[in-house]
């Protein structure tokens, strides 16, 4: 069980809609997503590329790319709405109360500014730390994420560091002000497997140490299983299933979740399957969504009702909800 259950949510995404494009050719990339993240909890968000994961995470901090906008719904941090906030007020939250770790540590760090300075400016911005103090804090921040000899490392530039080291720097930067919420958008995807394991271990340690809530976004269920307390499965901009991690892995109800799980290699399986399972078809484009359930063209269980009517999001067990007409069948 998680620590989450008896607490009111720290971060609440309520019926969020994010759209691209102008009137006439609007594409909805996030369509009515509702999620809750409790204090100290790690919520995994999983889905294929193009399902709206990154856009969802960027919308929390008001960092949507140009052309995209929040067209409906609410995002609340500890009860306070973030959606209507001015840019100025949002800046006080970014990097301070909510911060982000991005996928590509090489391109996400500024190549011409020393990493110490890139961390120190967070302290200067949010804690009004004087230059010298901020530099010392940057050294400590690097030490906290397991960077060796941080006193000399602060003078390094991103190109002088390995991929894993760069991601540690990103994490140090994100955790500098002890944010309440950390949004990690595919933080291990660009890394080698061994480095990936180290970074995941770091996430676990830091969570224990600072009790930070984490929104962990990944297309990789294996990674999600390592870190998340709960998982939300996203498909075409909607949440199709939400459950405690163990529950989802043991008892996936949505055919899409089952497909994702079946597509995972099973290292401890008795027999190595000839071929890995594959969900047929591809994610439809946001402007060419099918009627009814969005997964129906790829779903092995699809019925006529699935093709005409979108399924409601129903509770099927403790903390387990699913949006599928056929969720009860065909297990």
């Amino acid at each position, binding site marked *: 069980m998680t620590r989450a259950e008896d607490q009111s949510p720290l971060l609440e995404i309520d019926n969020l809609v994010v759209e691209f494009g102008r009137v006439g050719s609007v594409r909805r990339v996030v369509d009515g997503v509702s999620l809750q993240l409790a204090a100290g909890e790690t919520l995994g968000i999983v889905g294929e590329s193009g399902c709206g994961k990154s856009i969802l995470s960027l919308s929390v*901090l008001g*960092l949507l790319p140009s052309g995209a906008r929040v067209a409906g719904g609410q995002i609340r941090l500890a009860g306070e709405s973030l959606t209507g906030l001015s840019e100025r007020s949002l*800046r*006080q*939250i*970014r*990097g*301070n109360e909510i*911060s*982000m770790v*991005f996928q*590509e540590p090489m*391109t*996400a*760090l*500024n*190549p*011409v*500014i*020393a990493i110490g300075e890139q961390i120190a*400016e*967070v302290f200067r*911005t*949010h804690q009004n730390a004087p230059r010298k103090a901020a530099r010392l804090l940057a050294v400590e921040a690097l030490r906290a994420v397991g960077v060796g000899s941080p006193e000399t490392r602060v003078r390094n*530039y991103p*190109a*002088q560091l390995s991929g894993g080291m760069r991601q540690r720097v*990103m994490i140090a*930067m994100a955790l500098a002000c002890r944010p309440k919420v950390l949004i990690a958008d595919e933080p291990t995807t660009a890394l080698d497997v061994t480095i990936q394991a180290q970074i995941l271990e770091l996430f676990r340690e830091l969570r224990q140490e600072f009790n930070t809530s984490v929104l962990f976004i990944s297309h990789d269920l294996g990674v999600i299983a390592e870190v998340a307390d709960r998982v939300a499965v996203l498909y075409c901009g909607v949440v199709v299933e939400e459950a405690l991690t163990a529950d989802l892995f043991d008892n996936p109800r949505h055919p899409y979740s089952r497909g994702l799980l079946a597509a995972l290699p099973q290292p401890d399986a008795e027999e190595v399957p000839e071929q890995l399972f594959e969900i047929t078809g591809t994610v439809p484009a946001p402007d060419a969504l099918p009627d009814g359930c969005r997964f129906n063209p790829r779903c092995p269980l699809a019925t006529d009702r699935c093709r005409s009517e979108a399924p409601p999001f129903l509770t099927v067990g403790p903390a387990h909800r699913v949006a599928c007409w056929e969720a009860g069948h065909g297990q």
Partner: protein
Amino acid sequence: MLRYILTRLGHTVLVIFGISIVSFIFLHLSGDPVGLILPQDATLEQIAALRKKMLLDDPIYLQYFRFLTSALQGDLGRSIYSHQPVVGMILERMPATLELAFAALAIALAVAIPAGVLSAVKRGTWIDTISMSLALIGLSMPHFWLGIMFIMVFSVQLGWLPTSGRGTFLQLIMPSLALGVSLIALFARLTRSAMLEVLGQDYVRTARAKGLSDFSVIGKHALRNALIPLVTVIGMEFGFLLGGAVIIETVFAWPGVGRLIVQSILDRDYPVVQAAVMMLAIVFVTVNFVVDLLYVWLDPNINIDGSAA
């Protein structure tokens, strides 16, 4: 870092050496100075005697070697007319030319960088359209024409600024502006395109995600990256400034090396022309050396192994 500086310094010396050879050969290709020094009715004996006196009958490599030896000792010959050492003549005028060139560069950068950044940030708005249209106009105006227009409007019509000469700040305004305008245009367009590219980078998003102010995101995180291509161009355009100075100095009677070159060309005072070209080339190469160092400061990835990472 030290190794980088020494390598670049070595390059600089080699380039100056190359320039000396080229300018020496060109001088010789352009004609025999003896015919200019002596009156038209000079006898063949007089010509031969002067050629011998000036050691012009020696093979060209020997003459060059002599030129190089004395050049290394700081002697680039004497003016045919005034018989003054040319080095002194040029050094006397060099500060004026440098003042003009750097003032033009300063104006260009001071206007172009903010304009380019603003255009990029406000891309597609009327601010962008207007500033880029102005840039295009600026780029299409020849500076000698602009100089003459400035004189007609601000000196003759309005009487605000002096037409010519050097010494006061007011006298510097028109020549440096006339020289700088096309650079403003060029730099502004370059800054805009570099900024547009940089603003789409992940690290700019990271900077925003950290809660930094727009000023810091744009002025620090984005601009430092956008300046890298600009700095390269500044070095090259400095040659353009020195070349432009030759014309602008003549338009505004600015007592610099450029005007000396024009006057010496008209007088066919070859030692002066050669020495002035050489020394302007040295200035150009030196500026580029400084730009290379600036480049390292801006882009720390460059000094790891001497090339961009």
